[in-house]
């Protein structure tokens, strides 16, 4: 452990170009995936909270089950989809950051949708009579709920970010862990562990944890959450 901390420290301040490349790609893949997943998941969660339809309960149950989707299975699924022998092979996306983003979007969208659905459902119970009385359209309701629930929805999104940035199984399969192309922090950690370089792997792991904490703090600071007197 102590060696891991020392290695992490030395690693960050070595200003090693390869390390920064890996960190930057980790951020690029994860943040793109989180943005796309939030753009899908948040409105979907709100829509499910506001609408009553025949299969609603089943859709929600499936969504909750998909939260626990094993990333390796998602990786295999996306691999088979994007493989040259698969239905979307023509795009040549396999072993590219794009493929990794697709896999992560599939992994975290259900998580974001399900968490936001729970948040929005509670808020909708509170707002229901008011918004109906104000003669709002369905889209206006969803907008109001998303906006007024934004603090809790930010937390749901950050949960997605946490899951995405630490994910390794799926992106290893669809990204291929190619040096200078698709190697990110998690796959580099898996690689170094495989080589028995535990201290170095631990160092990378600590960089990953630090990164996750910094992103969370930054977003909370900019978003002014967790302060008295606001939501």
């Amino acid at each position, binding site marked *: 452990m102590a060696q891991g901390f020392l290695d992490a420290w030395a690693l960050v301040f070595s200003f090693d170009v390869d390390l920064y490349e890996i960190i930057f790609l980790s*951020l*690029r893949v994860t*943040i*793109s995936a989180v*943005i796309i997943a939030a753009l899908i998941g948040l409105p979907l969660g709100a829509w499910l909270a506001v609408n009553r339809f025949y299969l609603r309960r089943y859709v929600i149950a499936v969504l909750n089950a998909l939260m626990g989707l094993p990333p390796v299975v998602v990786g295999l699924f996306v691999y088979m989809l994007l*493989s*040259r*022998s*698969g239905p979307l*092979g023509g795009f*040549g996306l*396999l*072993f590219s*950051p794009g493929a990794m983003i697709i896999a992560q979007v599939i992994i975290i969208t259900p998580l974001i949708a399900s968490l936001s659905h729970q948040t929005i459902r509670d808020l909708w119970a509170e707002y229901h009579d008011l918004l109906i009385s104000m003669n709002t359209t369905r889209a206006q309701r969803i907008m109001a709920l998303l906006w007024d629930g*934004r603090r809790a929805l930010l937390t749901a999104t950050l949960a997605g970010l946490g899951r995405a940035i630490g994910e390794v199984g799926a992106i290893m399969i669809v990204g*291929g*862990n*190619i*040096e*200078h*192309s698709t190697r990110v922090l998690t796959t580099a950690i898996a*690689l170094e*562990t*495989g*080589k*028995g*370089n*535990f*201290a170095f792997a631990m160092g990378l792991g600590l960089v990953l944890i630090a990164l996750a904490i910094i992103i969370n703090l930054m*977003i909370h600071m*900019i*978003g002014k959450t967790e302060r008295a007197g606001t939501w």
Partner: protein
Amino acid sequence: MKLIWKALVAATVMATASHAESLKMAVTTSFYNSGLSDVLLPEIKNDLDLDVELIVVGTGQALYLGQAGDVDAILVHARAAEDAFLAAGYGTHRREIMYNDFILIGPSSDPAQIAGSQTTVEALQSIARTMAPFVSRGDDSGTNKKELALWAEAGITPMGGWYRAAGSGMGATLNTASGMNAYVVSDRASWLNFGNKGDLALLYAGDPALFNQYAFIPVNPARWPHVKNDLAMQLEGWLTSEKAETLINSYTLGGEQLFTFNATR
């Protein structure tokens, strides 16, 4: 809030740097772990202006990636599987490049007394007889196939509590063996580069039966028109050149030569 989104989007949209021509090659873990690729790839980039992107997987998965057309070429070491791959028309041809060797690793106390064995078969028989713990890759990789072939040669069907199939790559399997203080078959390069040896030691090596032939196979463009066959052929030319011969034969790890170039020109 708006500010965050703008910042995030900006960070995301930044495109990857433009590339020289690139080629995807599936290689085995043992090759990658040897560190030889770190020597060869920059030279290839220099001479051919070609970025070789390595997908590091087990031989089984490497062959599958070639079959599915997801890579342009493969560099593996499992003769029988390679022949089947070619017979099915997935590759154009097979070109032998070099060989390294497998070694038997085990606890330094050597409870099965294999260090003094005459042959690999004798060593494996000793392990089976004493039922000393043994960890197998168990992942259908080239190393795994080789190990199973050696057991078959020794007339033993390995099973029982002493025989553990890890179902992982070489590194993870070595980690497991280190943790259990068990015997294990490894390629020499992975072993020399391995950083978590613990009480393990190299106990037996040198039998020609343990030699490990690497072969280069370009994926068949008749099957997958998008594969970069011309680049693969350029790469093959380079890998069998005199320059490659020198680089491969002079590559050492801990003072030991790992690979022996044996391509025919």
